């Protein structure tokens, strides 16, 4: 089991977790994700890793409470264990030294875009960051993104912050003022990523998006996360999660992501009426972790790590 060392609210419904997962922390590269199962009756969901500290052996996840599992996760507190965390999965972002890169984060997508922005900046790339949210109180990681870019533009759909309302409005301005953009990376809702792709396509600007397909195992075994690129089928878990934004069949992705909508709503309704049913599973694994602390520390610690 994997201990939550610290967690804190970043915005309403958005929480940051530091989770002890030494092996994942050792290997993490920006762009990669983990699959999490909160308790024994839980589903497996992919969550992109926002940051990692290989020395402390922790990874950072930023979770927006949208469905049952993410809302359940956001009820967890410091010192509680998560049943399963596996990763890092997927391919890392390519952190070359580009001339200028525009990194766009929409909503909680900002958390996913952040480590790549930082990696690009450290590689010597000029990073222009655009982050957006529905309203100012939902903006996350503004300070981090400012530190990971030469220029940060903040957008709010409702105009609660001065400036452009949509990330595409901001991108339009950047495209006008920047003489040459080598890459645009967009992470956020499907509609946003599609809109960005539509804007950059006529200009031939290389554009990449990180796709949040539904997954089960995350290792290429089930094919549930298949996405279509041009005429080719790809698995988001092992071939992605980043893809050429101009090739993605967004309609198909949106349809497949809606496939379980009714069941997801039923699950969420049940959880909101009886959160105690799930919190019992959590309490049970807390007791287990108290009785057998070794299952918290050991499972993901290399056995002879002290020797090296």
């Amino acid at each position: 089991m994997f201990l939550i060392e610290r967690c804190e609210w970043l915005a309403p419904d958005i929480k940051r977790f530091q989770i002890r997962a030494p092996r994942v922390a050792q290997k993490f590269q920006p762009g990669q994700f983990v699959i999490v199962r909160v308790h024994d009756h839980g589903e497996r969901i992919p969550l992109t890793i926002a940051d990692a500290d290989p020395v402390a052996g922790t990874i950072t996840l930023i979770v927006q409470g949208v469905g049952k599992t993410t809302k359940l996760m956001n009820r967890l507190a410091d010192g509680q264990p998560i049943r399963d965390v596996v990763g890092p999965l997927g391919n890392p972002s390519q952190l070359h030294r580009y001339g200028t890169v525009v990194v766009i984060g929409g909503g909680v997508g900002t958390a996913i875009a952040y480590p790549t922005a930082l990696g690009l900046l450290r590689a010597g790339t000029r990073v222009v960051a655009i982050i957006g949210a529905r309203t100012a109180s939902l903006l996350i990681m503004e300070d981090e993104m400012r530190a990971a870019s030469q220029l940060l533009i903040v957008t709010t759909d409702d105009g609660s912050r001065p400036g452009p309302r949509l990330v595409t409005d901001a991108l339009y301005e950047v495209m006008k003022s920047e003489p040459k953009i080598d890459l645009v990376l967009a992470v956020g809702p499907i509609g946003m990523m599609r809109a960005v792709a539509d804007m950059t396509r006529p200009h031939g600007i290389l554009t990449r998006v990180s796709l949040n397909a539904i997954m089960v195992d995350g290792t290429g075994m089930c094919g549930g996360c298949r996405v279509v690129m041009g005429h080719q089928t790809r698995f988001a878990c092992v071939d992605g999660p980043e893809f050429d934004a101009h090739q993605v069949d967004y309609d198909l992705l949106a349809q497949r992501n809606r496939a379980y909508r009714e069941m997801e709503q039923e699950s969420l309704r049940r959880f909101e009426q009886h959160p105690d049913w799930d919190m019992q599973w959590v309490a049970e694994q807390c007791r287990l972790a108290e009785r057998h602390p070794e299952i918290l520390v050991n499972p993901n610690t290399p056995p002879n790590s002290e020797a090296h």
Partner: protein
Amino acid sequence: MNDLSPKARMSLPRQSMPAQPADERSHNFSEVNLGLSVLQAHQEALRCLECTHPRCTQGCPVGVKVKDFVALIAAGDLLAAAAKLREDNVLPAITGRVCPQEHQCEGACILGKRLAPLGIGYLERFVSDYEREHGVHTQAAKVPTTGKRVAIVGSGPAGLSAAGDLAQRGHAVTVFEALHEPGGVLIYGIPEFRLPKEIVRAEIENLRRLGVAFETNVVIGKTVTIDELLGTEGYQAVFIATGAGLPKFLGVAGEHLAGVYSANEFLTRINLMRADQFPDYDEPVFDCRRRTVAVVGGGNTAMDAVRTALRLGAARALLIYRRSEVEMPARREEIQHAREEGVEFLTETVPKAFVGNEQGLLRSIQCIRTEPGPPDRSGRRRVQPIADSEFEVPAEIAVMALGTGANPLIQASTPELATDARGYIAADPETLTTSRPHVFAGGDIVTGGATVISAMGAGRRAAAAIHAHLLMPDSKSDG
């Protein structure tokens, strides 16, 4: 003791396996076969002709000494029979249930020339169940520990059998599993009604008692690489037994509609994630009730998927197979069970396209009839479509059970690990050595999709080869 004359033995009928009635079991996930009674097992054991050169043992991929363990059943010493079985087979309660005995031990049985072959699978299952239900754990004699550490990648049948054999030889074994529960295909793939998970867990517990360590949630190639296992992690040998985990699709239109699953996904959602118990378990699966579920394929996985659909309440469960029923690669028993339970067979048929509604949900499958064509290079007849034979089958859920390909995670992260043209790891068929020193590979990741028992056979050969390798003076030192 078996005092019967050969003639008397041959006059005994083969015992039939008690099973849940078809109309009952098609609505529940409890095991279909109920197992022989003690009396039945004894009667069956008496049928063995105790050949001087038993062909059954040769027919078994792990060389189980059938004659010896069956004789112990005839003599009434059931626990000794179980111990004898375990000398060659570390997972007998599993193989007794899922082996294609008709092509292996029973297919070779001399009785089968004129009569029904000895019920070896039934007897194997019987003694290992007897052992487990009586809480007895046959423990091999403790051997001195060698101080050598072996990492096994994957906890399916190949990995588990190698782990058992290596632990019995005194090596320290760790099995790495990518999912959250060990067992591989035995847990995520084969359904409860054919292989109860309690049995898999009991066999894994037996291995733990032998000293085997399991580490779940580790994807070798991602979380840890093969090079790290042999380096910082301090293992002297690695056995790659990841299975062939990459689902195949037909490549026809509409295959990505919601409601079209790979068999791996459909079965994993139910077997591993218990989507059949949604919303008590969170993972969902499409509701099969009052709907038509069509499974494409003719192997054991296809049978598992289509019979699972019935148990999930499908109004119609269809099996679409491109060849004829006799050519289906599934075990005979599974085909028969599926038929009894009400699965409809649509043979000599292939899907041409999947058709959805405006929400992208599957609504029907366009099919075309096939006929046998000229033989291919392997001698198997090709399948060719019959012109103008298209027809449409209404279906809301489709499951593609077309076999699997090579999952590339390990190959991609392990430099200089040679693969064949299809991406499977190249390994010597006998010694299972790969192009990398200290790295062995076996099971489906080498051969492509095969059976539980052939993977176990590979696990055994790997264990023997790794044992020999570790005892060589120039093998990798303990670092």
